[in-house]
């Protein structure tokens, strides 16, 4: 199975330490990778380019949501693109999971496949992280009408219809809930895929704090 009709969208912000390895590894499965360099102050963009990714550079830092939207718009401008996968730049996602999600789109099971950490017991987040995520999930399920077990998972796969329905306005972290909202509003067919998140020390250091979830909630209320 080849994935030359799939684009991996990787929002990239100050990940010079790991991005070369992440892109190199992902390219073993996915030949098309677009990294959206969101105004990094290190040489993340250059390293991603060296690893074989196409790099689209925001002239200023806008936030992860904005970077994902830019990447999706880039992918949709490629006529050969049929599937779009959002993939984190810190190496916490597995390409096997991404490939399995695209396979399900290919079978036309859904327009969107969300990755979920909580469908099986493989992933072991810390207690605090679990609490934050569970709160966000309850909030999202109550407001969006889309029922998921994990709303803040950066690994998602869309077919063209699904990707074209997105218009992410939340520049920062609230984009995760916004994507779920828009999937609900557009009436897209969605499903979930159990995925394994590799919580390395590196990704844990960069993860969402409890305070950040306060930001997520207020930005949702004031959209």
């Amino acid at each position: 199975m080849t994935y030359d009709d799939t684009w991996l969208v990787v929002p990239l912000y100050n990940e010079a330490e790991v991005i070369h390895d992440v892109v190199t590894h992902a390219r073993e499965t996915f030949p098309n990778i677009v990294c959206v360099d969101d105004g990094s102050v290190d040489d993340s963009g250059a390293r991603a380019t060296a690893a074989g990714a196409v790099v689209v550079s925001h002239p200023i830092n806008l936030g992860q949501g904005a970077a994902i939207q830019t990447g999706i718009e880039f992918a949709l401008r490629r006529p050969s693109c049929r599937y779009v996968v959002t993939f984190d730049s810190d190496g916490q996602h597995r390409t096997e999971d991404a490939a399995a999600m695209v396979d399900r789109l290919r079978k036309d099971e859904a327009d969107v496949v969300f990755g979920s950490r909580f469908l099986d017991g493989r992933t072991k987040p810390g207690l605090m992280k679990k609490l934050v995520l569970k709160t966000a999930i309850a909030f999202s399920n109550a407001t969006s009408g889309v029922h998921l077990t994990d709303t803040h998972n950066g690994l998602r796969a869309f077919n063209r219809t699904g990707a074209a329905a997105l218009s992410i306005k939340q520049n920062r972290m609230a984009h995760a809930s916004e994507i779920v909202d828009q999937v609900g509003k557009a009436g897209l067919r969605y499903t979930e895929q159990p995925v394994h998140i590799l919580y390395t020390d590196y990704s844990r250091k960069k993860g969402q704090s409890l305070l950040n979830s306060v930001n997520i909630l207020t930005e949702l209320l004031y959209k």
Partner: protein
Amino acid sequence: MWIKVILLVSISVIALIGLRAPRGARHLALRRITLLAFVLFAAASVLFPEVWNALANAVGVGRGTDLLLYGLILAFLGYMATSYLRFRGLEAQITLLARRIALDEVGVGPVPEQGAVGQEPTVEVERHPATP
């Protein structure tokens, strides 16, 4: 205590405006009317400072200065809400601008027609081979 009702109503109005501020000519006209009312009110309180005390007593506040302070707090909250919205609007515009620049830089065409899906584009993006 009338003051509590007045303050609570004002706060909810500000919150409501903060949530969905009307844009355009109507919004501008409202702002100008508010400014005019403020000027008249300020002039009146300079000429007749005892009006504040009378007003304060009428709504159940001890002194005119206290009433003034409450008014100031409300005005500040309103200012916060409207500037937050304006800021959000600006941010959205900057985002679109920056995205356009970023996409133009890599030189990709517009979103292809529905029928064209599956064909390779004429504009090729510069690609670097993976380093070993």
